[in-house]
């Protein structure tokens, strides 16, 4: 392992995991959902809104608003502000920026929030207006959105490494088992591998249960220094390390690895832990094949061994490799940018011991990863973070 030259996150902690339960469709706006999350943050942390002096927001459906509009909307007076449009990598990126802000005392309490609404037509509009390359060179080709783009990646990856639908299906099935213990998951019915395999094709080889369900919801957490958390008597998790990478491996003709693979050694070196030490792993699961790719790129197995790794492990809450314990986006739903937060917020609950019905016994070390922005032919943004609970 290489030594990192980056400054460690001394004394940076994360607290107050907030999930505003998702709904399939909402007539409320993104601002409404973000407002609920802020309110829940304040209530859970036992602080006043005026104690929040840093704000970081992610949303696809805020219309013309960015973070600045929200300060006035919600009556927040902050001295540090960011808006992060990185889709599935937004939570890790928000955490990284907020961590440095509180560490450098540019702010004391940063609220990181992601929320999106889902009107009946808003998902289609998001697809249509996703990015310039998407508008010019992807959407006019079948208008199938991320499903078609990931289908191309999945097909190439599965063929190259001999991955069967059963292998990726096992990930989705395990997550559904986890979701049945999460009262907030939108998917309430059990899912068998047979049902997974028999599902209707959406964009071959992507079938129905490979896809996330767009929905409305919000997620949030607070970032602060440990002395702030102590003075508030707030249970908090220490941030051990993070990585973030964009547009990695641009010369790969098709995506078979994400940016994690560039920085994974640094991730573990900075945290001072090994992959085996982790108690719970939360990957970004818009399509289980991307989760399989993360198992490889995050160092749980070698490239091309993802399928074998999945075959060898039990990914459920009580299994030997507890993964996406809330059910993940595949079974909880994808609330726009909040989908990026889902795993990190659940991982935070796990190491704080507050995950309730989805709690992994004695979980004290969690990894959460993010992935996002299919700008053209591949996901550009990736990131990961390792958190340690108070018991560690």
């Amino acid at each position, binding site marked *: 392992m290489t030594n990192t030259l980056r400054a460690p996150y001394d004394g940076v902690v994360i607290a107050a995991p907030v999930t505003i339960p998702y709904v399939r469709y909402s007539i409320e706006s993104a601002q409404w959902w973000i407002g609920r999350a802020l309110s829940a943050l304040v209530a859970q942390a036992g602080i006043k809104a005026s104690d929040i002096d840093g704000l970081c927001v992610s949303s696809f459906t805020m219309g013309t608003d960015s973070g600045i509009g929200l300060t006035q909307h919600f009556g927040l007076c902050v001295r540090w502000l960011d808006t992060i449009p990185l889709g599935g990598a937004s939570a890790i990126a928000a955490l990284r920026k907020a961590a440095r802000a509180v560490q450098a005392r540019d702010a004391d309490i940063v609220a990181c929030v992601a929320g999106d609404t889902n009107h009946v037509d808003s998902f*289609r509009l998001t697809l*249509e207006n996703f990015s310039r390359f998407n508008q010019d*060179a992807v959407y006019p080709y079948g*208008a*199938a959105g991320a499903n078609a783009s990931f289908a191309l990646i999945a097909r190439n990856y599965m063929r190259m490494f001999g991955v069967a639908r059963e292998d990726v299906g096992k990930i989705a099935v395990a997550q559904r088992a986890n979701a049945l213990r999460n009262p907030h998951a939108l998917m309430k019915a059990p899912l068998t591998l047979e049902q997974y395999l028999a599902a209707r094709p959406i964009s071959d*080889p992507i079938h129905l249960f490979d896809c996330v369900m767009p929905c409305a919801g919000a997620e949030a957490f607070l970032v602060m220094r440990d002395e702030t958390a102590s003075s508030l008597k707030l249970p908090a998790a220490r941030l051990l390390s993070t990585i973030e990478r964009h547009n990695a491996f641009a010369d790969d003709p098709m995506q078979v690895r994400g940016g994690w693979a560039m920085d994974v050694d640094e991730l573990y070196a900075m945290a001072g832990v090994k992959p085996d030490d982790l108690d719970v792993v939360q990957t970004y699961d818009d399509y289980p094949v991307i989760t399989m790719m993360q198992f490889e790129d995050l160092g749980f197995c070698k490239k091309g061994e993802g399928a074998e790794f999945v075959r060898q492990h039990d990914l459920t809450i009580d299994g030997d490799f507890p993964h996406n314990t809330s059910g993940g986006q595949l079974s909880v739903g994808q609330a726009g940018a909040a989908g990026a937060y889902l795993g990190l917020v659940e991982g935070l609950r796990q190491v704080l011991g507050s995950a309730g019905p989805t709690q992994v016994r004695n979980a004290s070390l969690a990894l959460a990863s993010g992935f996002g922005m299919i700008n053209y032919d591949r996901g550009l943004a990736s990131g990961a973070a390792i958190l340690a609970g108070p018991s560690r």
Partner: protein
Amino acid sequence: MIEQIKPPRRKNPLLRTRLPASPPRPRSRISHGFTRAAAEGRFMLQRCEACGAFTYPAREACPSCLSAGLAFVDAPRRGVLLAETTARVPSDVYFRERAPWRIGLIKMDCGPTIVAHLHADCAEGAAVSMSLQLDKSGQAVAFAHPEAETPNMADDKQWREMTADPKFRRVLVTNGRSVIGQEAVAALKAAGAKTVFVGIAEPWRPFAGEERLRGQDGIEIVTLDAADEKSATDLAADIGGKVDILVNTTEYVRPGGLLDRRGTSIARDEIDQAYLGFINLAQAFGPAMRMRGADGINSSAAWVNILSVYALANWPAFGAYSASQAACLSLSHCLRAELRPGGVRVMNLFTGPVDTEWFQTVPPPKVAPRAIAQAIVSGLKNGLEEMYVGDVAEEIRQRLAANPKALERELDR
């Protein structure tokens, strides 16, 4: 392998005609470099003038060296299909109605990877040949074909969306008295058109070449004087719902410019025939064509204009004629915009002087009417928007691009 398409059955007049939908239309300004290429059937990519790298999608700076010099240049068409998928549940109406729809990612031999529509005979791992096509929104899209010819290749469902193939379609050729019109009728019939309606003004008056049209299978002579509003409207009332392709062969060529003519009577005739004739035809046939853009195998598909290349740059020896053609060219852009919601293409063929009576004194090279007819068919089959037929037209195009002032000075002699 593609199954041959079958001749459409007679339409049930009680059933609703399916209205046309359009594929996604927004594009960045720079990516209209592809639109320009597709309009002429060229395959162009951006290539960095500094480092020589090809790039895609359309960019404002080279991702290899950040140079802003990214000109669109003709590019090698060959690539390999890396992966494909079939979109079964698209999110917009146009593709939803046409699903399943196949797309793929192609690694071009010259470097970039391109998401493209796939011809059904493209196979993963195999070589493909890429073209740029105009889709039903009139916007450029990449289309991958198998490298070699395959059986019934042009009958591919996705390819038919990109073209206006005359096969099984019904065509109106507006003026059958001209040699161009007669050659067009023959070429369209040979290309598989079901019926070719041929407009003849005052059909009781005999005309040269009449025997090529009368009593031929699949050719129907109809009364049409495009310059006469009522004549156009009457014909449209009769056959307007079954004109899938309209070929405007109206022709009115007179020499002369401004000062050597007295008065406006010839100019008025030129405008009546060419410009107002165009308006009459558009108003009579355009609305039904726009409605029928998604009406099955024989949906309405295209409008063809044959224009003098001197519509683009005035040729004083035929100065007033050039001006009438320029007016028609401008009007064709208006028609293109108005037919676009129906997915109906407007193709302009630019020609130099044609080998007919009215250009008798003009020295060669002149364009054979048959070459124009063949170009019409080839343009329809390939879904083009702009064609330059013959050496003179091609030369004027190049000279205009090089230096319009030089062209203006040199046409004056």
